[in-house]
């Protein structure tokens, strides 16, 4: 049923390398690497030919150990880093007719400000720690063109309430908050423009278990309520099991297995996935 729809985001043949490449590693077909690393020229192939579609309202989980390329992929999708090659199409941007990677920096900024939200593992990257929490949310709305303080204040309060930040603390700077609260402010910020797509990068890593659970509940509730499409990266299969409809397994920069989350957990095909699933039990 899902397949009959247009994908919200379509990622095609995304590659990201760090280093110049050399005869031993240049050709993707005959590449000889140690993990994702060329021992001759020290080039790191962080993402190799990554492709997937994300459908409206869907949550895709991306799992893999650290260094598997999942965070790099997210950085490329949010234009924090420039992809080496590949294409990505976003339904909400010019009806999915344009490869976002080929757009100008100004357009990329527009896409980030209007059509996407991202929550980073490290709140330092996603928030201005010295500004008020509500200012952090307003920043994204200002960037998207809002010039009414009352509108931003209302929306900010509404969102902060949704992520359970007490109303009397919304003018405090996130630097005074606990890790879990910072993460919730980030989520509120990412949602401020009602983006069709949300990128969540290890959002619960480093949080206490009880806090983790509350953040996960929050994401789940918001996703149901707002119908956003989400790419969720985690090294923790438990997180993915709780939230993701479908799952990609990444290893050394490649997608080694993909399918419905249940299927992958019940019946993993690849040795690496089996190992991952096994470790969860």
């Amino acid at each position: 049923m899902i397949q009959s729809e247009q994908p919200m985001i379509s990622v095609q043949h995304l590659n990201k390398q760090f280093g110049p490449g050399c005869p031993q590693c240049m050709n993707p077909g005959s590449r000889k690497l140690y993990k994702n690393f060329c021992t001759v020229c020290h080039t790191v192939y962080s993402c190799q030919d990554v492709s997937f579609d994300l459908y409206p309202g869907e949550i895709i989980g991306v799992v893999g150990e650290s260094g598997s390329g999942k965070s790099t992929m997210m950085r490329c999708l949010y234009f924090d880093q420039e992809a080496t090659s590949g294409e990505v199409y976003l339904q909400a941007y010019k009806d999915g007719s344009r490869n976002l990677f080929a757009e100008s920096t100004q357009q990329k900024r527009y896409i980030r400000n209007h059509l996407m939200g991202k929550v980073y593992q490290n709140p330092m990257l996603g928030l201005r720690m010295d500004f008020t929490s509500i200012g952090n949310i307003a920043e994204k709305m200002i960037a998207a063109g809002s010039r009414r303080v009352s509108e931003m204040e209302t929306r900010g309060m509404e969102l902060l309430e949704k992520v359970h930040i007490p109303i009397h603390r919304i003018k405090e700077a996130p630097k005074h908050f606990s890790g879990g609260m910072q993460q919730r402010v980030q989520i509120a910020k990412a949602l401020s423009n009602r983006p069709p797509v949300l990128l969540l990068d290890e959002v619960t890593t480093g949080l206490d278990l009880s806090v983790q659970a509350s953040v996960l509940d929050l994401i789940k509730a918001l996703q149901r309520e707002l119908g956003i499409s989400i790419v969720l990266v985690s090294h923790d299969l438990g997180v993915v099991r709780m939230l993701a409809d479908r799952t990609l397994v990444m290893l050394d920069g490649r997608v080694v297995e993909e399918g419905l989350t249940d299927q992958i957990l019940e019946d993993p095909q690849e040795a690496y996935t089996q190992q991952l699933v096994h470790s969860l039990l």
Partner: protein
Amino acid sequence: MQINYNFAFFDEGSKREIRRATLKAIAIPGYQVPFASREMPIARGWGTGGLQLTLSLVGRDDIVKVIDQGSDESVNAVSIKKLVQNTTDIRTTDETAQATLIQSRHRIPEIPLRAGQILVLQVPMPEPLRMYEPREAETKKLHAEKEYSGAWLMLFEQIMNYGSMTTGADHPVMVHDRYVMAPSPIPKFDNAKLNASEALILLGAGREKKIYAVPPYTKVVSLDFEDYPFETESFEDRSCRLCGSTGVFMDELYDDVSGTAYFQCNDTSYCLERMNEQSWREGAESR
């Protein structure tokens, strides 16, 4: 002094270079043009940017006026005026209407400037986004991409914290719908004078090595929000103790005898002209 300096201090090559940067600034209103700022005989931060503009532009027929904080007679204004005079021997004036070139720190004169005049403003911090982003390489990108969320965010934060915009002087403006610009620390009261000005307005930052411009009749809008409109300093119904003016920017002074505050025009030459007009009129009436 044994060595005779060049007319207007600089060698002609330097003047030409500064004028080239100035022309570029006029061609791109509000854009900060980097230039090779020279060391001047006055200290960095004391108006070297403005002085370089003045000296690169001044000709033998010019009449120069220099004000600092609204006053022709403030020590820094006097010192700059003296330097211009010593190196050019041209005429100086206190009267705004008479001047062809006006160098000012922190004020735009009360008497409306007219076509043909040039106002040079001294700028300490030319980058309106500096408090939001410390790195020059980054702010250059933000300007290039017209990404000014930071400028509005700073104002939003003020409203959240204090209930109103509290920029004080140097309230940022949008020039020609393109570049956000620091108008130099003029009071908000003077921001409106930047809009559609008949005179050419040049801004020079010597230490930060930038020149920028508001050409005549350029649209200049102070940044604000729809529901928090830009407001200037208010002196309510206060009038100048000397000349009785209202609706001008005033200095608040303290009378230690009566223990009360009183107000006086900040623009001293404007105040003086008003007083002279009044005394002339009174004289005519009594005759």
